[in-house]
């Protein structure tokens, strides 16, 4: 016999109580893992998306908020807010390459799909896309370059007809998987998009590649001077979007913390019940030589064991839940990033270790008061309890 075995015997002595207490802590940890997974997934994907934008600067209409900036990275539909005359002024600035984007939408088989008008050859080059099937569409023709996941979803292949806004397009090529939101978008030539969507040459935003990266600030200043637009660097854009994501993440973590706190009170309750129910056992242990400190330790470790077992189960359930929930979360346009990031959306092992440690510590802290009560019982008082 040793302390560990005795703790395990006590822990599993009342299976229903053990299971019910475990459910509480497991739910708390599961919630925390899911929340962290989603937060991590969002962050990772936004980071990746920003680096894949292939731009040093992004030109947006004045007054856009972070929510719209998220959409710049997510490829979701944005207003066609930059007029052609401003675009001409931007293109006239020296030392930069411009890539205008017109983000619109359509539907295939009654399912909404994101559509983006781009300058085909320039964008393919700047984004370093690999066209694995078919060819890069030619500007001016009603053709489509499809992302890998959307092509798979609708079983698209080069030569297939697709109707967008009543106009028949032909799939010209498929982009090899990029691991970004681009995989879920249909790209069409910008001039055709203007025509089909009747935007009078307006675009949603413009990605800018500066020839000399040491002069990014200068280029930004020149664009602001030349046109009535807002210019943000890729880093500013990323920081702005991440601040929104972080605030969402903080809210999610608070929810998880409340769940864990509730579970901690469940442990306090269970351990107090155990102290009461096992009064006589405490007396027996003391009569055969257990010290108060030993009783305190046994009860404290028992509470900690709830945290450990609940933590392990919570981590497993949390990882599974993250994988199952991600596709549903991804259907929300604001959190769409996680859609292609299920693997990244699981917290790293170091973080899981910290969660487990936190679970044990919370449970042990919850066990301090009941353990003190148990240790303070006098042997005669405890042993005389009927």
């Amino acid at each position, binding site marked *: *016999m*040793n*302390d560990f*075995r*005795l703790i395990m*015997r*006590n822990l599993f*002595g009342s299976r229903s109580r053990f299971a019910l207490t475990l459910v509480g802590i497991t739910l708390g940890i599961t919630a925390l893992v899911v929340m962290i997974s989603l937060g991590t997934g969002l962050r990772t994907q936004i980071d990746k998306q920003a680096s894949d934008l292939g731009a040093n600067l992004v030109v947006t209409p004045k007054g856009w908020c972070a929510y719209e900036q998220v959409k710049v990275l997510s490829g979701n539909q944005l207003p066609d807010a930059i007029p052609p005359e401003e675009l001409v002024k931007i293109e006239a600035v020296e030392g930069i390459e411009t890539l205008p984007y017109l983000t619109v939408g359509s539907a295939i088989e009654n399912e909404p799909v994101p559509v983006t008008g781009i300058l085909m050859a320039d964008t393919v080059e700047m984004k370093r896309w690999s066209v694995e099937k078919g060819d890069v569409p030619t500007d001016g023709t009603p053709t489509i370059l499809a992302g890998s996941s959307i092509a798979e979803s609708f079983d698209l292949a080069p030569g297939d007809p697709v109707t967008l806004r009543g106009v028949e397009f032909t799939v010209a090529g498929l982009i090899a998987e990029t691991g970004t939101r681009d995989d879920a978008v249909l790209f069409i030539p910008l001039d055709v998009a203007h025509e089909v969507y009747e935007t009078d040459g307006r675009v949603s935003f413009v990605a800018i590649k500066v020839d000399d990266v040491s002069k990014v600030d200068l280029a930004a200043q020149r664009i602001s001077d030349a046109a009535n637009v807002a210019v943000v660097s890729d880093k500013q854009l990323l920081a702005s979007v991440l601040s929104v994501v972080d605030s969402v993440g903080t809210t999610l973590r608070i929810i998880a913390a409340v769940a864990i706190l509730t579970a901690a009170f469940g442990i306090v309750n269970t351990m107090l019940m155990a102290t009461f129910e096992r009064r*006589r*056992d405490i*007396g*027996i*242990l*003391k*009569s*055969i*030589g*257990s*010290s*108060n*400190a*030993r009783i305190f330790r046994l009860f404290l470790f028992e509470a900690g064991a709830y945290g450990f077992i609940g933590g392990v189960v919570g981590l497993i359930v949390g990882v599974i839940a993250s994988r199952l929930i991600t596709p549903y979360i991804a259907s929300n346009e604001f959190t769409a990033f996680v859609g292609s990031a299920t693997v990244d959306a699981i917290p790293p092992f170091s973080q899981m270790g910290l969660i487990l440690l936190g679970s044990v510590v919370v449970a042990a802290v919850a066990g301090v008061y009941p353990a003190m009560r148990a240790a303070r019982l*006098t*042997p*005669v008082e405890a*042993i005389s309890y009927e």
Partner: protein
Amino acid sequence: MNSIMKVQGVHKTYNGRSVPTTALRGVNLEIEAGSFTCLVGPSGHGKSTLLHLLGGLDRPCEGSIEAFGQRLEHMSDAELARFRAHKVGFVFQFFNLLKGLTVAENVEVAMMFAGLPAKEQSKRAAELLESVGLGDKMKARANELSGGQMQRVAIARALANDPDVLLLDEPTGNLDTVSEGEVLGILDELHRQGRTIVMVTHGAEVAARAQRIVEVRDGRVSV
């Protein structure tokens, strides 16, 4: 014979919620090594309280208790726990086994508190259970046993750390005649082997086996 336990002028009062209850009033008693002493007397007159004080389960309000050269009333809680683990073995009327543990584990747990390694615990538990006729019940749960068997496990547990004194609080009070005979037989044998025994009992026949009978009445003792 040399005295191993010496009680001098011990008073014990319990502070209940309404009125204090005095259990012992100036008790003097000596227990000699290898003796078999029975504490007899009416219920509620202080027999069990005296036994608890001898075993370091409780502290006197006044007076002194010397056991093996140490004053129990001066010991810290931790020292008293060590005293209970090494020097005395308790057996109670209602067996007081840990129901979630097996028979062997109930014996081993006492050795665990005395710091015996797990391997030695198992070996000694097997020997002790064999000696009380329960060698075949080691893996059984404590609550699967009859009253007599449970009390024999309690005796094995009390002997686990080879204590100098066995303190028994009405060990046969909850047993049928056959089981009572078995338990008393074991106690006789332990006494023959030189073990010091102090037993609280109501039964005159049980008390008759003792070398010395001490009557506890109204918190006072008379030999």
